[in-house]
C-alpha cells in the first residue's frame, strides 16, 4: 500500500505537515501579517520579533490544507535568523524549492506564505515608525487590493 499523499505531496511537505515548525502566537510581536480569507479556506497569521534588524523569533497560525500548513512552517525556517532585507527577498519559488515541490494547484499557498511574511515586516515598519522600503510599499498595496477584491466577492458569506 502506498504512503499517505504519495502522489500529491513530497516527503518534505508531509514532514512539515506532521510536525509543523514554529507554530503559535507571539503576544508582544513587533510585526503581525494576516493574509488569506476563511471563505477561500486559507488563512495565515505570521508573527515576528526583530532585534538588530534580524528576525529573532517567528511563529505562525494557519487555517488551511496540507500545503498551507507546510508552506507556513517552511517559511518560518527560511526567515528565522535572516536580516529584514534578506527576508524580503524570499519568493514563492524558494518556498516551493524548500519543500521539494508542490502540486501546481497548490502554488497559491506558497504565495500566501510569502505575502504573510511581507505583511508582518510591513507591520513592523509601521509600528516602529521606520521608513518603509519602496518595494515593500508596492507589495503591501497589491496584497491590500487583492484582499479587498476577495472580500467584495465573498461579502455575503462573511
Amino acid at each position, binding site marked *: 500500500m502506498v504512503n499517505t499523499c504519495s502522489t500529491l505531496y513530497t516527503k518534505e511537505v508531509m514532514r512539515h505537515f506532521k510536525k509543523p515548525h514554529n507554530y503559535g502566537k507571539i503576544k508582544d510581536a513587533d510585526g503581525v501579517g494576516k493574509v488569506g480569507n476563511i471563505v477561500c*479556506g486559507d488563512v495565515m497569521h505570521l508573527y515576528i520579533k526583530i532585534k538588530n534588524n534580524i528576525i529573532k523569533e517567528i511563529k505562525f497560525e494557519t*487555517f488551511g490544507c496540507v500545503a*498551507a500548513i507546510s508552506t507556513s512552517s517552511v517559511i518560518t525556517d527560511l526567515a528565522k535568523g535572516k536580516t529584514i532585507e534578506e527576508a524580503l527577498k524570499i519568493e514563492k519559488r524558494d518556498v516551493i524549492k524548500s519543500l521539494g515541490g508542490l502540486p501546481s494547484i497548490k502554488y497559491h499557498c506558497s504565495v500566501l506564505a510569502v505575502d504573510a511574511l511581507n505583511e508582518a515586516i510591513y507591520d513592523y515598519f509601521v509600528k516602529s515608525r521606520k521608513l518603509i522600503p519602496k518595494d515593500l510599499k508596492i507589495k503591501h498595496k497589491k496584497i491590500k487590493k487583492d484582499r479587498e477584491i476577495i472580500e467584495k466577492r465573498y461579502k455575503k458569506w462573511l
Partner: protein
Amino acid sequence: MKKIYLDYAATTPVDSKVLKAMQPYFSKDFGNTMSLHSFGQSAKVALENSRNTVADFINAKPNEIIFTSSATESNNTALKGVALNMPKGGYARHIIISSIEHPCIAETAKWLSRGYKVTKVPVDKYGMVNPKDIEKEIKPETILVSVIHASNEIGTIQNIAEIGRICRKRGVYFHTDASQSFGKVPIDVKKMNIDVLTASSHKIYGPKGAGLLYVREGIKLVPLLHGGGQENGLRGSTVNVPAIVGFAKSVEICKKEMKSESVRLEKLRDKLIKNVLKIEDSHLNGHPQKRLSNNANFWFSFIEGESLIIQLDLKGIAVSTGSACSSFKLEPSHVLLAIGLKPQEAHGSLRVSLGRYTTEKDIDCLIDILPGTVRKIRKISPFKNF
C-alpha cells in the same frame, strides 16, 4: 499500523464470493456474447442470467435492463439519451434536476443546457427535495426529471415514490441516480413510478467496470455508444461479462443481506454520530433520520477538511471531505452549499461511510482518535478559542 477503511461511499472491495463467480469468465468462458459458436453462447447465457437477477431485484423486466461500464455512463445515457431523442418533439426541451446531484448528472445537465433549459430545484437544510417544488416547475415542455435517490455526500434519502407519482401524473419521464441506494434501500421501479434508473456495481462489493441503466419498456433512447448492436442496439461495445457476472453476484448477496446489514450499520452509524457530536462546534449534515444506514457527514468549525482527512490517514483511517482544497476545482462541495452551509463551513466537512467489513472496533477507534485530531488542527489555527 492497522488501516481502517471508512470510505465505502467512494468504492467498496470486491466480495470474495463475487471474485469467485467472476473467475471462469476471464479465461475459460471468455467468449464474445455476440458470437454464434458455443464460446459466445456460453458467455451470452451468463450475461442473460445476470440480467434476470438484476431485473428481479428492482421489479423490472429483463428487457428493461441495459448493462453499462459505470453509473457515470448510465447517468450520461439517461440524460443525453432521453433528451436527444426529443420524446415530445423539438419544442419540448426542459429538464429538471435537484441542486444536489452527483457531478455526472450536474455536468451532463450543464452540457445539455446549450440546447435545453435546465431547472435546478433547491433542497432544504437537510438536503430534502420537496416534491411540490418539482411539480411547480413542470411545464408542457418538460421531458425529464432527475433526482438522486440517496445523496452520496450527506446520505439524505429522497421521497422518490412521491416524485415518481407526480411525474407519472404529469406525463414526464422520471430518472433517479440510485448509485448509493441500490442494494441498501429497497427499490421497486413499478411501485415507485421510476422510468429510468442508474445503479453501480462497485458501490455494492462488485467490481468496477459495471453499471446498469433501467429503462422502462416503451421509452426510447439515443445510444451514447453506437456500434455492434449489443444491449439491444442501445449500447455498442463488447460486453464485459466478468464484470457483469460479478455485479449480478453482488446483487444476489445484497438480496439476502440487505435488511440485516442495514440494521447493523444503522446502529454503528448512530453510535458514531452520537459520539462525534460531543466534539465542540461539530454539526451533522443531512437528514437525521431519512439518511443512508452507512453515511455520517459532519462539519467542524475552524477546521480545513483536507488537513483533517490527511491527519486521519496518517493514523490509518480512510475517510473523505467536501472541502475546496481537496477538490481539483478549488471549490467547496456544491451539495454542502445547497443545504445552506457557508463556504467556510463546507471546508470543515468530514464524510464517514461504513460498509460490510466495518466493525464496532473500527468505529470506536475513530471515536477515540477524532477529538484529538480536531483539537490538534484547531491548535495551529488562528481561530483559537478551543
